[in-house]
């Protein structure tokens, strides 16, 4: 048993190195950012363990800074994290028969872990379940370490962090741009941008999210036929 686990860990470790750099860097930025907003390192520590979804954790900071709005928080979180649902669909088969580890594999299925576990098969003599387990665990430990370190270092170093909150904007700009570049048709991107700007103008910065999310769902559903035909062209 010990041998099996060690072998799986050694197979998983090198494949997670790219995630190590990314998560440490972004995690640090996230921790320092939370600290600069007046939150102790306990916040990034707990949030990186409990939520474990980078983009939502960043957004949660701005939610924590505004008025308590549970419904908006729930809808926002569901929309941001909706893509995980489709990761799960893709992993139904792969995570079959992994026993008790399965609950943790699902809990830790973030973007990076999904892309690692979905794209590459473990070497043949390595136990699949334990391999997936260690990829998930290593990825999460990088993120938790980065976030917590950032929270601690941010308070120790005399940094002038004014403007660091732009890291959130830059991150979403890059995610959006990357998604745009990979897509063949951009109708849904434009639709999302249009509805968001319209609702922002109509409802104001504090309450435009819920109407935007409703609007996006309604329009995507209403124009489903047309959008699907366009995609098929």
């Amino acid at each position, binding site marked *: 048993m010990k041998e099996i686990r060690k072998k799986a860990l050694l197979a998983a470790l090198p494949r997670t190195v790219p995630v190590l750099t990314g998560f440490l860097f972004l995690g640090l930025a996230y921790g320092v950012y939370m600290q600069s907003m007046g939150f102790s390192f306990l916040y990034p520590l707990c949030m990186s363990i409990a939520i474990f979804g980078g*983009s939502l954790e960043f957004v949660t900071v701005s939610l924590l800074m505004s008025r308590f709005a549970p419904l908006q928080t729930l809808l926002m979180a*569901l929309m941001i994290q909706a893509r995980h649902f489709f990761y799960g669909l893709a992993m139904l088969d792969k995570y079959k028969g992994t026993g008790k580890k399965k609950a943790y594999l699902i809990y830790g299925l973030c973007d990076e872990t999904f892309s690692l576990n979905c794209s590459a098969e473990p070497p043949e003599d390595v136990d699949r379940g334990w391999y997936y387990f260690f990829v998930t665990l290593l990825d999460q430990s990088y993120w938790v370490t980065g976030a917590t370190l950032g929270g601690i270092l941010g308070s120790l170093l005399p940094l002038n962090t004014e403007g660091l909150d*732009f890291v959130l904007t830059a991150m979403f700009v890059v995610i959006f741009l990357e998604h745009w570049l990979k897509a063949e048709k951009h109708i849904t991107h434009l*639709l*999302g941008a249009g509805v968001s700007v319209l609702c922002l103008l109509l409802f104001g*910065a504090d309450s435009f999210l819920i109407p935007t999310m409703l609007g996006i769902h309604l329009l995507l559903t209403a124009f489903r036929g047309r*959008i699907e035909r366009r995609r098929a062209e």
Partner: protein
Amino acid sequence: MSIPERILTIGICALATMLTRFAPFLLFSEKRKTPAYVEYLGEALPGAIFAMLVVYCLRSLPLLSGNHGLPELLAVGCTVAIHLWKRSTLLSIGFGTAAYMILIRLL
């Protein structure tokens, strides 16, 4: 926001995340196929949502007053340019944020 409200907010975010991660394993299997509408949303939703999140980040931009949101707009332009050039997520986020931090001190 009070401490219990903060804990509740974080709890809701954690709960929503776990709902999205566990739901497919609870709802579907190889035998029960995913409904076409769900598959369609999986294709169509991300682009729209990422656009919404960019707007959300820039929601308080003072377009008509002060510096007219110039640092934000320039920094977004900088992020996009570096990303189109190098296509490296970390580099784009790093330089974009650095550009913003410099711009707000200059403008």
